[in-house]
């Protein structure tokens, strides 16, 4: 039998997705623990996730500075001692600051957990933000900011977020002078109010026998108490700017960074999975309309894509790229064309079925290991959703009709209503 090289092999669409669900327990101090037990390797990832304190425009950097400096010293350990302990046991300690939450993450082999956990306990219970470390932090951050400000895509993101979200955690882009508003006393007070058990969610993923779980609960239950004042995790409302067009000229630029988009719904909205399908068609995968036209046909860019962000108070849909400075206007014209096309014409059935399969495959592929299952859970939990969200998502991806997407395009993909930011030449 001759080989049929021109004909694609048979394939199967993905029917359903199996997600690992966590075991849950609530400690007496109010801290919730979610536990994902799976995998062969004798290791764990543990995350301590805290809701961010309310944004204060006068002291805009408190949330991020407090989080970043958690590894810089406690009542009993210096920054150097913290680093020594973590590294000696082959562990990885990370602090991460996000729009809605800040977190501490520990990756540790199970056999060393008894030595690494007490360091975390110390950090989230008794960080002291030593004056000298604060000075170093400020100086180094200011220097890094100077380098970042030379990158067009970085500047574009800042200008865009500020225009879309105003004086909030979402719109914040630090200026060198903002670092002068950082004072140790404020940081300590912020820390005490935010980093307490009642504002903490612990997510454990890995190979978790009973003794590992007990080690965690024993460390973070009895000795860890709440502050007299609850964390204030309410946030000021979004403040989108009236001006929609921003150009930062860089006369020497070889490329211009373009970022444009609109405030949109977040994951809690029933239309969110629908909009994800539309976003995928527009710019969410390699074969997307933007990529095929602006990279693969015109060669204006190394990459272009669209994305969606979902956070507590809302969301956004945006397009981002860096294009040759001489083709910046042409690229924007093509972006507008692609948006209008989605508004004016239904997506052809072939393309839509490809996108359906791609999205389901991509969801399946994103579940690489037990850590990814925990990540999927966090998306749900912090949006106040249940696992039926993913059932709904799978169902929407399988069944969404072209006219629904066209209707959605008319609601969200209006080029004239987009915020548009250009850094470089226009």
């Amino acid at each position, binding site marked *: 039998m001759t080989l049929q090289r021109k004909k694609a092999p048979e394939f199967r669409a993905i029917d359903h997705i199996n997600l690992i669900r966590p075991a849950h327990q609530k400690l007496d101090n109010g801290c919730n623990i979610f536990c994902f037990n799976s995998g062969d390797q004798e*290791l764990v990832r543990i995350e301590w996730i805290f809701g961010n304190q309310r944004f204060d425009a006068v002291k805009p950097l408190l949330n991020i500075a407090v989080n970043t400096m958690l590894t810089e010293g406690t009542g009993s350990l210096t920054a150097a001692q913290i680093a020594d302990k973590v590294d000696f046991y082959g562990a*990885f300690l990370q602090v991460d600051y996000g729009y809605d939450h800040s977190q501490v993450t520990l990756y540790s082999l199970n056999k060393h957990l008894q030595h690494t956990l007490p360091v975390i306990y110390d950090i989230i219970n008794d960080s002291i933000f030593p004056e000298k470390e604060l000075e170093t932090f400020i100086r180094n951050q200011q220097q890094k900011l100077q380098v970042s400000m030379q990158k067009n895509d970085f500047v574009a993101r800042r200008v865009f977020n500020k225009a879309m979200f105003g004086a909030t955690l979402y719109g914040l882009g630090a200026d060198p002078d903002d670092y002068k508003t950082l004072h140790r006393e404020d940081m300590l007070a912020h820390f005490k109010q935010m980093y307490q058990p009642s504002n903490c969610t612990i997510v454990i993923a890995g190979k978790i026998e009973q003794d590992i779980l007990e080690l965690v609960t024993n460390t973070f239950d009895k000795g860890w108490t709440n502050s007299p004042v609850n964390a204030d995790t309410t946030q000021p409302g979004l403040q989108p700017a009236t001006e929609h067009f921003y150009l930062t000229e860089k006369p020497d630029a070889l490329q211009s960074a373009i970022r444009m988009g609109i405030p949109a719904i977040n994951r809690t909205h029933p239309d969110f999975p629908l909009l994800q399908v539309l976003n995928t068609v527009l710019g969410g995968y390699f074969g997307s309309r933007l990529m095929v036209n602006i990279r693969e046909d015109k060669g204006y860019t190394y990459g272009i894509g669209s994305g969606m962000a979902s956070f507590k108070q809302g969301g956004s849909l945006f397009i981002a790229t860096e294009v040759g400075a001489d083709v910046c206007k042409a690229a924007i014209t093509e972006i507008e064309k692609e948006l209008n096309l989605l508004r004016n014409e239904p997506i052809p059935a072939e393309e839509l079925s490809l996108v359906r399969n791609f999205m389901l495959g991509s969801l399946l592929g994103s579940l690489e290991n037990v850590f990814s299952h925990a990540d999927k859970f966090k998306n749900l939990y912090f949006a106040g959703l249940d696992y039926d969200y993913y059932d709904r998502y799978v169902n929407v991806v399988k069944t969404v009709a072209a006219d629904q997407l066209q209707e959605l395009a008319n609601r969200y993909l209006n080029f004239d209503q987009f915020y548009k930011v250009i850094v470089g030449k226009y």
Partner: protein
Amino acid sequence: MVKFNRFTLENGLRVIVHEDNTTPMAVLNILYDVGARDEDPGQTGFAHLFEHLMFGGSVNIPSYDEPLQRVGGENNAFTSNDITNYYITLPSANIETAFWLESDRMLSLAFSKKSLEVQRNVVIEEFKQRYLNQPYGDVWLKLRPMVYKKHPYQWATIGKEIKHIEDAKIEDVKAFFKKHYNPQNAIMVVGGDVKTEDVKKLAEKWFGPIPAGEKYHRNLQQEPEQHEERRATVTAKVPLNDVYIAFLMGDRLDKSYYIAELMSDILSRGNSSRLYRNLVKEKQLFSEVHAYMTGSLDKGMFVFEGKPTENVSIETAEAAIWEELERIKTEEIPADELTKVKNKIESTTIFSEMSLLDKAMNLASFELLGDAEMINHETDKYLEVSAEQIKALANQLFRKDNSTTLIYLAEIS
């Protein structure tokens, strides 16, 4: 421990199968034994440009990406100075689509002129985005030719200059394909929710009929030892001064590779490392400073890179780095410090086994080095390294006359 099975097709294609039934996915990774080091000095950047063209349709299949996306798959590729690596992840039920696509482009490309024209532009934009339009982005374009006088590592994967990419012709593309893209020059790893027997059948079916082609015999001029201090200073539109010091080191198969990696960990891995602790935190001379090695297959570079804090002179900054080098050359390394970096190697290895794609890529790389089984003995090689060996290697590498220093001075506006 990464278990695998191995077989070779008659046409010379080496195939490795790693069964991992904890995932519903499969990975198909193909490493081609060709990188920027195999390029003509007058046609640099070609291996990487060629990688882009591999997505421009093959002899029987006009679009590579579309049929893959249709079965829920994703793919990407990268080119380095040594290799070009292509990978697909997809639901394991659809693994045959990956065989179909990859075998057809190993058989022959479509050699579309339109694709060449567009990808030339795309790669030129990539050149600008990553190397020219970023502060310090052109460092490797400047540093490589200072360190390598003979060996083709003197140019970066992206190429020496944009003109080389502009000049690429379809005939060059065809010749490059013929020379490098055939079963004998490739290693395929299939991993995930698959069975070796099935992979064998699919490999025979789709790859078996591809002609073996000619084996490419690499014969590169190796970089001679360096016996002179090299130095350059550039003034650039960058916000901060920046210091780079590169030392020529051994190749990937040299025993010193493992010693060098532990040495770079002692110097620069994590917040407990020497450079960070002493130069950033204690002496406050740098806002950031790092040491790392390029890890190339032929003789590599051991690089130091740091941005001095404001008001710290370049001389002071350089002297501070050399002081740390003197320390590691002369002082005993405390046992705890060596244990620390070894523990980190051990945990990194275990964590890397959480990723199917990482395992597949690593198996292919080790097979290229000589034996995929090396993947399971790496940790032991690190554990065997002694403090004396590190000290000896430091003395061998960190000599002024083996150093190449590149200084970026911020233009005062």
